[in-house]
């Protein structure tokens, strides 16, 4: 067995790493492939140009579809969702909250469409139960009084961060597979129809790294076409859809609430811990990096969402975010939400390469199946006949990953009942011990952990203050531990606040404006972070 990531110094300071399979892209699909291959005994190196779930995997509703959303326009996708929904509830329950889902129609919605819904669900094998408007209002009191139809389906919510972290952690524990963030592919070296090395840049240090592998997997999500092109492959055709979602301060409903109409803007509200996520808008974009919400998209979501849940019009919002969804081209014209939600696995043999494949498209709910299909191809190419195990082996809970789960931190903190373990993030009750554990153990081979990286691995900064206070407290704690010894901690604080702000900028009104005035007085007026000279 080849030992992964053997460091070979090759003279000019260029690092060379070696692994059996290089997986490019740390979304849930890449993480899922890493685990799937590990369970087949294949060692991998997973790289991401940023960090886990930095793309669409981290920027979605966190909705584990029952399939109901797709019954009207894509029965195949609906059935895939139904099957995967059942598997994930069984094998990764720590990442799932079984909220149930409602599909609701309000006055003015197309009744003919609403009436076909239960039949279409039954065709796809999806459990469906009609609720009278009164019954629906009894379980979800915030629903509109103009409600005319409601159906219950087995929708659930899923924490994509924990999912990715635990897939990586399991692979690491199982066969020493490695995850390395901030590592971007800049080229491939090919020889006789095989890729021999991927040339990478460390985006933190700008160092060049060569990665040798037998097989190369492109799980780059929205970036998959660009990555394939670096290998000379012109058979990946993607277009891009920008979606914007917003997070309310309160949990506005306990079920996933879907508008019972053909998919459109602002028609899904998903609970997540103490908050809810409303979205999404959908517009074509050419821009892949640095997509940010606009005021117009926010207003659109709020207006549409409040037709289902009127309280959304006056709710307090703490954050908004955008992400780019890769759409497979040629699958259909017209609305980007239609007929383009399937995934594609390309083996690139027509492009003259025998050890490279690309997986893209799809959705969070079907990530495991996407990983399975990809791993089947890779394993076959390597002559490995073990077969997929992710349909049967539960995803182990990993302690270092538990801090992303809403409400988990306070639970563990109370249980431990250690008076010395102080709460650093007061909104989400993240204690010192969580930060310690994350710095020591969470999957990240990077030498420097930033506040952003800590926040990604916990709930810190995800509450109403959006990190304004806990960013300061965590930095102070890290100085105290000797983790920071110079201005670095201040720069990390500033970067962290700037990063959090991107998601707040379009939703600052009401109480959030008061919160922000205080935050800015603290960060800039007192601490002077606006005068730091690092940019």
């Amino acid at each position, binding site marked *: 067995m080849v030992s992964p990531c053997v460091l070979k110094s090759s003279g000019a300071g260029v690092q060379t790493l070696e692994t059996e399979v290089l997986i490019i892209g740390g979304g849930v699909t890449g993480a899922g492939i890493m685990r799937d291959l590990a369970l087949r005994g294949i060692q991998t190196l997973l790289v991401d140009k940023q960090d886990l779930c930095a793309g669409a995997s981290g920027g979605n509703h966190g909705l584990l579809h029952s399939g109901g959303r797709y019954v009207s326009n894509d029965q195949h996708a609906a059935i895939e969702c139904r099957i995967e929904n059942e598997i994930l509830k069984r094998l990764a329950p720590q990442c799932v909250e079984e909220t149930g889902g409602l599909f609701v129609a309000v006055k003015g919605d197309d009744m003919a469409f609403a009436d076909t819904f239960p039949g279409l669900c039954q065709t796809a094998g999806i459990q469906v139960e009609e609720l009278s408007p009164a019954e629906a209002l009894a379980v979800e009191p915030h629903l509109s009084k103009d409600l005319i139809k409601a159906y219950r389906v087995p929708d659930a919510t899923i924490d994509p961060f924990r999912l990715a972290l635990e897939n990586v952690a399991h692979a690491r524990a199982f066969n020493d597979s490695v995850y390395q963030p901030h590592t971007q592919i800049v080229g491939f070296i090919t020889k006789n129809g095989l890729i021999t090395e991927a040339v990478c840049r460390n985006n933190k240090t700008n160092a060049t790294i060569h990665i040798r592998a037998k097989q190369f997997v492109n799980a780059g999500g929205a970036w998959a076409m660009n990555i394939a092109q670096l290998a000379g492959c012109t058979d990946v055709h993607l277009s891009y859809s920008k979606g914007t979602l917003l997070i309310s301060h309160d949990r506005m409903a306990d079920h996933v609430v879907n508008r019972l109409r053909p998919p459109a803007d602002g028609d899904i509200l998903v609970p997540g811990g103490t908050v809810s996520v409303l979205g999404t808008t959908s517009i074509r974009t050419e821009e892949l990096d640095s997509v940010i919400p606009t005021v117009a998209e926010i207003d659109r979501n*709020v207006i549409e969402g409040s037709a289902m849940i009127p309280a959304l019009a006056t709710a307090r919002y703490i954050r908004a975010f955008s992400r780019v969804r890769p759409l497979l081209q040629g699958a259909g014209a017209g609305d980007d939400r239609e007929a383009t939600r399937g995934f594609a696995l390309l083996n690139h043999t027509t492009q003259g390469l025998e050890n490279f494949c690309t997986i893209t498209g799809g959705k969070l709910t079907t990530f495991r199946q996407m990983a399975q299909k990809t791993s089947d191809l890779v394993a076959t190419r390597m002559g490995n006949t073990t077969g997929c195990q992710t349909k049967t082996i539960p995803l182990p809970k990993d302690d270092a990953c538990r801090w992303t789960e809403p409400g988990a931190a306070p639970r563990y903190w109370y249980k431990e009942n250690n008076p010395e373990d102080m709460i650093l993030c007061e909104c989400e009750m993240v204690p010192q011990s969580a930060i310690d554990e994350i710095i020591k153990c969470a999957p990240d081979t990077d030498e420097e952990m930033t506040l952003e990286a800590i926040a990604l691995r916990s709930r810190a900064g995800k509450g109403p203050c959006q990190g304004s206070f806990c960013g300061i407290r965590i930095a102070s*704690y890290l100085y105290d531990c000797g983790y920071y010894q110079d201005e670095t901690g201040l720069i990390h604080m500033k970067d962290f606040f700037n990063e959090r702000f991107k998601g707040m900028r379009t939703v600052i*009104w*009401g109480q959030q404006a008061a919160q922000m005035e205080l935050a800015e*007085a603290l960060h*800039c*007026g007192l601490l002077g972070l606006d005068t730091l000279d690092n940019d």
Partner: protein
Amino acid sequence: MIEEARYFETELAVIGSGIAGCAASIFALNKKITTAQVGNTGAVAYTTGYLDLLGKLEGDKGAIDNPWDAITALKDRCPDHPLNGISAADIRAAFNEFTAFLGECGIAYSSPGDSNITALSPAGTLKKTLCVPATMAAGPKAFAAKTACVIVDFKGLKGFSGKQVVANLHKQWPTLKAERIVFPEMLSGEIYPEVMARALEVEKTREALAESIKAVAGNAKVIGLPAVLGMHNPDFIKTELERLTGFEIFEIPTMPPSVPGIRLRELFEQVFPEKGIILIPQQKVSSLTFDDDSATLSLTDNHGPITIKAKAVILATGRFLSGGLEAHITGINESLLNLPVTQPAKRDDWYFEQYTDSRGHAIHKAGIEIDDSFRPIGEDGRPYHERLFAAGIILAHQDWIRSRSGAGIAIATAYKAVEAVDNFLHA
């Protein structure tokens, strides 16, 4: 409890209990104007205790050493800035009067000097300010002279790390060190600045703390502590600790809400009624109406409804944090009288893309307009009412956060507003 309706008559009603409102009450008191002060205490508890005049010009990265020169420059840079119409002599007089009052009441302050003081933040960064409480004065002095100093912090006090202060200052201040001690009688678990401050009002606690400080002081001449030196007699407690330890001692502000802010709030709440000011803090005014010879304020507290008739009103309700302005999805409005608010054309213009953009965000220049006599302008472009005046950060055309000028704007505009009220009442 039986509710009773109460009725007060006064010459001046001040709405708002932040720095601007309290400064207005002090200035009115000194002019023998009978005063009632009502409204939320707002952001006083969030202040650090430092009183800034002008620490930075908007858009600049560099700090201002001489705020008096910088105010002159402000006239070109921000022509509508509320400080522009106020002479340096008036600003200085306002600061002198304000700090003298605080000193008489038990919280001594440095007088406004000819240049800014370089003060310390809890993160070990530096901040320009005009006046500091006596309990904090030795810090800037020790920094300037690079005196051997130990920052002492406490086990269980989160958000304040001596090591952090040292890490960010050691290049400029090589003799600075950090030590951690246990606060007397608070051996385990989380401890809170407010509780520590009240504990230090007991002599035994001070003696025990002094012993712990001496044990870690090494060759230091000066000791820095988080701001916990008592709630009501900080100057006395500092002097006592200095006597007991033999070291000069100073405080560094902690994360808000901090002890120095609570000290100010409690001082005002104690002293104002003693001096004859009708003080109804923590309550929001529900309505303000005017007729020809007076203004009428209505509010309700735990004991029932209150009506105040006043000859003049100063609106010092602050911005979003204190509730003077409200930001809505559709725009910004003034919350009590719906006065016109100067603001960016659309919500998309409120903030730049980058949070720490050194230009500062347009939303922080939103506010109400005033005329030369500090009367707010109404819908018709004329003063809203001859009896209505305004002061503090509710005024438009200034970004108090980025220019480090919150106290300066509050104190100087309160001074001028009270002067205008005095002219109006006694003309």
